[in-house]
């Protein structure tokens, strides 16, 4: 059967999704990037191959996320797309009438406004990472609560405390302060959810007309406390799609299906990618005072591409980067 592979490599998680020609999900993987995007992608490929085996033939590959270019080179991608477009495409696939997408990932958060099946506006957090997955992870670890249970705790709160949510450093100080005053863990966690939602709506969502249906995507949507807080602040139902954590990958796979050159073979290198040796090395170019950090990407010792130089003199062979 013909299938399409989408890979979304972000700061915190690496997600893979395989769809059939009708856009039905055949297999999915959600992994921690853990600072090693290449290894994470290879691990995901290994798992997908084990699951699907020879049952499917990959006819197109799309990559997205902050490591989309690197991943595109790694696996051989037909489409390399930014995560805003990928998330919008996936949201429209799940809910064709969607008018608002809230997406909170590991290190960035975005809002996408759609009308009549088309993106008309979007925003991403700019100067502050407050309210993203990394911070929640960190706080869950500090409080000794597994991240999976973190959101559920908020639902048990009776009197959520007010936490300063503008900046993560101050939010943490404020949480510690409330904790030392004797507030319950549930109330503090609920207060944090409230603060994050307030911050999101005042920063990323500023000036945007948020209309239903509202989809909440990204890894953080697993946090039920946040879902409730969003629904309360917006006074709208907020839907978390079934595969909210791999929507970026689903979007990338759909883009691979829709944008591949008609009749052209896929650039996919095959499942063997999981066993190849990929290495990145870097050096500082001494050509001018910019001292650019140039990265070299090697497959089995051969340089596939270089990037990172401002003037472009090292960027040989890196098509699409």
């Amino acid at each position, binding site marked *: 059967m013909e299938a399409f592979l989408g890979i979304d490599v972000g700061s915190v998680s690496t997600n893979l999704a395989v769809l059939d020609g009708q856009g039905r999900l055949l297999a999915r993987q959600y992994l921690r990037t853990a600072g090693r995007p290449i290894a994470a992608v290879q691990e995901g490929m290994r798992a997908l191959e084990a699951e699907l085996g020879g049952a499917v033939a990959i006819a197109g590959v799309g990559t997205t996320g*902050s490591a989309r270019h690197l991943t595109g080179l790694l696996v051989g991608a037909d489409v390399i797309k930014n*995560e805003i477009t990928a998330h919008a495409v996936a949201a429209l696939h799940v809910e064709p009438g969607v008018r608002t997408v809230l997406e909170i990932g590991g290190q960035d958060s975005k809002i996408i406004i759609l009308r009549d099946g*088309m993106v*008309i506006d979007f925003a*991403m957090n700019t*100067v502050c990472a407050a309210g993203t997955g990394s911070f929640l992870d960190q706080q869950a670890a500090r409080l000794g609560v597994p991240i999976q249970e973190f959101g559920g705790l908020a639902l048990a709160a009776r009197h959520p405390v007010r936490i300063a949510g503008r900046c993560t450093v101050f939010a943490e100080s404020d949480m510690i302060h409330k904790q030392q005053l004797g507030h319950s863990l549930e109330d503090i966690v609920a207060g944090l959810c409230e603060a994050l939602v307030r911050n999101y709506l005042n920063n990323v969502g500023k000036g945007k007309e948020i209309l239903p249906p509202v989809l909440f995507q990204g890894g953080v949507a697993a946090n039920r406390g946040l879902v409730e807080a969003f629904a309360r602040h917006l006074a709208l139902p907020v839907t978390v799609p079934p595969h909210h954590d791999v929507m970026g990958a689903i979007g990338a796979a759909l883009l691979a299906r*829709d*944008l591949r050159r008609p009749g052209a073979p896929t650039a996919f290198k095959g499942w063997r990618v999981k066993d190849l040796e990929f290495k990145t090395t870097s050096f500082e170019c001494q050509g001018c005072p910019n001292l650019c950090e140039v990265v070299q990407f090697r497959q089995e010792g051969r340089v596939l591409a270089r990037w990172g130089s401002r003037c472009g003199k090292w960027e040989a062979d890196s098509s699409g980067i």
Partner: protein
Amino acid sequence: MKVSFPRMGNSHCAFRWLLEALGHQVIVPPEISTRTLDLGVRYAPEFACMPFKVVMGTYLEVAEQGAELLITSGGVGPCRAGYYWVLHQQILEEQGYPTRIVAFDPPDCGWRDFWHKLAFVYRSGGVSLRRCLWALQVAWAKLKALDDLEARSLQVRAREVQRGATTRALRQAVATVDAAGSLPEVAEALAHGLRLLDGVDQDDRRECLRVGLTGEIYALLEPVASLSTQEILGHLGAEVERSMYVSRFAGRKGFGPPHAEVVRASRPYLGLECVGGHGVETVGMTVLWARKGFDGVVQVAPFGCTPEIVAKSILPRVSQEYGIPVMSLFFDEQTGPAGVYTRLEAFVDLLYARRRARRGEESRNGSLSRH
């Protein structure tokens, strides 16, 4: 005297030539690099905007090389940049440099002051007023030629077949203008440069967007200050029209819409003639571009820029009433290039999808590019 000035795009070619013609020894400000920014950030107040820091870095770099005189523009109105040179001067003194800054305020704010400063510059170079006037004429022609070339490159880049070809052609064209030493030579260099740009191999079948680029003046004039937003837009397939150039700032007519027209266009949204910097122009240009049927507008400004924040808060209304997408990007020394690229790419995707939809074509993502 050893003279230097802030760096803004390619304008240094004209300024170098002018000051040399006035008998000075010119230290050409180096290209803005990581080192420039590091130096500027180290000595500037933290909450000064990025242009302050970049210019501070440049001043320190040229002061190291022995610059004795720095020439810059002042400014009037609510934007604090008009006062930057005073603080720059103080920081240079604190660092032990004897460098002096002369800042030219717009002549209509005080002809006497302008004249005194001009007289100081040409007399200290040991040339006559006559030669000074001639040199100003040629330098003005150079400035205009440099802007003409850049404006053309912003159109050509969208269709270039080989990525980077336009940037290379522009560099060559600028070098020709740089070498010109008289009005006829400048005219010839301009014609040659435009031919070079038009000679770039172009894909005529590519469907290009028309995007207006507006915002704060330094972020527009020095591409590095917006992490090359104008080039990225070109690579993504957008023909870019920019609201500001050095020559336009200096009063050039017929290069972009007349100032009065821009102000008039902003009137329904802003009751003021001036909100500082070019906030009024940002609003007015967006309206004018929308009326001309542009696909979208990108606003660029340094983080914390008050005039542009005023404009930014008005733009959503303009965007809604005219149905033109607008994206604002604010930059400081912490801004990462990856985030800027991601936003611009998503914005361009949005513009292509709209264009398709307006033509009534079935979209199913088909209008997007593969990379």
